[in-house]
């Protein structure tokens, strides 16, 4: 069995950033394992720009953003293998892999970083009735066909779900000569970024139907028609509001789910709200020495935040390997209050926070002119004014060691009225 200090599962933006950060912190023996034929992850098919504003201060496309990290990893001589599947990660950090060239191998690592990313929710997961013809794709699959393989998934398109991939694909399909008849969103608001609604839908006169869903799929062989209806406040279709769209293609952009099958095998505790591992301030999971970062923990909307979080995982994995991490001391739990769906990390070992800790969270609804409040008991530790809050836009709160010093037991994150 070969030994590595650090094995990173997944060579997407999270894995690359984590490995680079670990290397910068003097971990020499690192292996990144990627299942696809190249590293870079899903960014390789995200050919639109807007990536990297925080980190690089310019608007890069996904592939270019990935390339910067790939080049940096290469220049630092970080080992990586592609076309390699991790079959198993044990709690003892033995990593089982398979690859056509080197066959079945096992590696022993001192630390492991899980960076497998996420997958798309499917038609089955949202229970759309009707036939099961071809022409129904998850938006990301259609994106791969269009942008990487160079094939069109269809000509007349309807899109369910206004997540960013769906919005981006609406524009992409139009640019490549397809007709996009509309985007239906179950919620009364879009889960995508506002800029994408403007430049992907509004620019091309594609209607966004809020509080609408697809109630039936027709077509015995290829998709022929979708039936769309408005929904009431309980998301039930309202009879009489049905509209038919004759399309050969339906793209589903109905959410992403962290992909944690390996984490389960490793015995890592998952948060049912995020479907990702519970992590602490160091991005360490419930299994000591196994860290996680990026979309495998919770679904991010900006890759810069993935990078930021993954650097933290890389740094802390390095500290763990070098035995520089505090393992005991004051622990603060991060919990959700009114309006907050989840907070990452969920546990903070205060002594491990050096200059600041960025807490990521999502809200459960659209709010205007409210405050994000962090309280410990009756002590308000932070209260930040927010003009606009939406579930589609991840929020962050930066906590300094001095903030954490004020906390006892738990921190509760919630939304409060502006005057509260």
């Amino acid at each position, binding site marked *: 069995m070969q030994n590595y200090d650090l094995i990173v599962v997944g060579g997407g933006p999270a894995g690359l950033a984590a490995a680079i950060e670990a290397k910068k912190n003097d971990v020499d023996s690192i292996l990144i394992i990627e299942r696809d034929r190249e590293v870079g992850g899903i960014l390789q098919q995200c050919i639109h720009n807007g990536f990297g504003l925080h980190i690089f201060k310019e608007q890069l496309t996904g592939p270019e953003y990935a390339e910067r990290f790939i080049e940096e990893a290469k220049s630092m001589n970080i080992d990586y293998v592609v076309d390699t599947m991790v079959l198993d990660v044990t709690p003892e950090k033995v990593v089982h892999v*398979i*690859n*056509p060239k080197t066959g079945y191998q096992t590696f022993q690592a001192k630390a492991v970083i899980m960076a497998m990313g996420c*997958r*798309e929710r499917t038609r089955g997961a949202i229970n759309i009735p009707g036939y099961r013809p071809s022409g129904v794709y998850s938006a990301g699959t259609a994106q791969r066909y269009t942008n990487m393989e*160079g094939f069109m998934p269809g000509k007349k398109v309807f899109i369910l779900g206004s997540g960013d991939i769906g919005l981006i694909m609406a524009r992409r399909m139009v640019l490549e000569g397809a007709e996009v008849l509309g985007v239906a969103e179950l919620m009364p608001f879009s889960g995508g970024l506002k800029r994408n609604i403007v430049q992907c839908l509004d620019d091309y006169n594609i209607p966004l139907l809020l509080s609408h869903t697809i109630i039936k799929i027709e077509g*015995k062989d290829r998709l022929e028609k979708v039936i769309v209806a408005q929904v009431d406040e309980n998301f039930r279709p309202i009879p009489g509001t049905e509209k038919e769209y004759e399309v050969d293609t339906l793209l589903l952009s109905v959410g992403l789910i962290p992909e944690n099958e390996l984490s389960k095998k490793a015995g890592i505790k998952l948060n049912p709200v995020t479907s990702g591992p519970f992590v602490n301030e160091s991005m360490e999971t419930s299994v000591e020495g196994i860290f996680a970062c990026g979309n495998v923990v919770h679904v991010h909307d900006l890759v810069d935040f993935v990078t930021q979080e993954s650097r933290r995982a890389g740094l802390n994995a390095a500290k763990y390997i070098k035995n520089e991490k505090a393992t005991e001391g004051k622990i603060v739990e991060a919990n959700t209050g009114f309006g907050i769906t989840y907070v990452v990390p969920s546990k903070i070992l205060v002594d491990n926070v050096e200059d600041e800790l960025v807490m990521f969270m999502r809200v459960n609804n659209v709010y205007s002119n409210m405050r994000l409040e962090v309280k410990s008991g009756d002590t308000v530790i932070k209260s930040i004014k927010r003009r606009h809050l939406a579930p589609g836009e991840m929020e962050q709160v930066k906590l300094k060691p001095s903030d954490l010093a004020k906390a006892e037991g738990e921190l509760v994150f919630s939304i409060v009225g502006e005057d509260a």
Partner: protein
Amino acid sequence: MYDVVIIGAGVAGTSIARELSRYKLKIAVIDKENDVANETTMANSAIIHAGYDAEPYKNKGKFNAKGNAMYTQLTEELDIPFKRVGSLVLAFSEADLATIELLYERGIENGVPDQKLLTKEEVLEMEPNVNDTIFGALYAPTAGIISSWEVAIACMENAMDNGAELFLNTTVEDIKKDGDVFTVKTDQQDFQTKYVVNAAGVFSDKINNMIAAPTFEIQARKGQYFIMDKDIGTLVNTVLFQCPSDVGKGILVAPTVHGNLLIGPDSVFVDDREDVSTTAPELAMIREAAALTTSKIDNRKVIRSFSGLRATSTTHDFVLGETPDVQGFFNVGGFESPGLSAAPAVAVYVADQIKERNGGFEPNPTFNPVRRPFIRFDELDTEEKAALVKENPLYGRVICRCETVTEGEIMDAIHRNVGATTVKSVKKRTRAGMGRCQGGFCEPRVIEILSRELGKSMNQVSYDSPKAYILTGRTKNVEE
């Protein structure tokens, strides 16, 4: 000139083809679909019933337990995934208890071995997730779970290994008989044959009526199902039936042979014999009804819902054997549940009838009952995996990450007899795309492999029939 033409490549037609390939015969199997096992055999409960359901005087009662017993050898010879997990018919009332006692008696008459009536405590010990409102159950240890379409694929492959021919995308238009010779007219070619077997599923009455007197009519009866994530595949250990009652047959909750959880089916007669759509009210009803068995089903774990059609005959039984008015024309009609369970026994019965009509058949001297095993990478242990990849590196490339299906398996599925030619046929044979991402990640790779192996462009690879095309063409208007 063929000896036997079999119309329909579902479980009935293919198991008869395999049975007949024991003899020195020229056999053709014809199906209008793009693959074998593409309709009823693809979409059903995939259960090998023990055999206590039907009355003993019916064909259903006669052949079920017999067929069930034959599955041990059949699945071994043909390497078909099969597990005898047993079944429970759950009683939730005094009336239900009376019903299961009746079923128990009927099971004895039908030759079902080792049945047992269980007390509440015994049920809960066996199935701790069953609602504790349970009164008791009928346990039948011989019931099993199987991959129903793989039964037909394996039977057809073995029949072809032994000389039978398969004609897909071939729709029968008419059947004529001149003297002792039948002509089966199709949209592709005409087949001359001595004997015809009608195993055409929901269309078996139409085929029958082309040549014989209309003695039965098929009504398509739709059943809808949920397939749940493997995460909750071990929620139950055995096939859990609800007790049949005046209100209906009840909804089953069962593990699948591949480790998922299956919930369904309802029962609705439909006019359109190709209506395999799912419908919201029925799916909701199934969800509610399943909760009567166990309230612990996490409905967010659905990975696919589907529906299938049962070929229900107006005679309420299988229509089996030679028609009285047309010598040499054999029916396997109305082959609804327990058709899958009865299929091996029915195949022997029909093959024997044909043999008798012919005055005997010469054995096929090269007949080999064993299908070359299908290597399923995920089921191997570490050493076996390592050795396999060393021998064939394509088994080291995982294409479907949810079900851990390798390129080696997909290549094997393509290059065998009854080889896969479409995304769906790869899925049926290897499970690539059957997992929780439903092909989101692997479909482009599967299309690429099919395109490479079949010498087609990627946009010529379809999901199922050619009408179920996937990619519509290249992006850009450049020569490639």
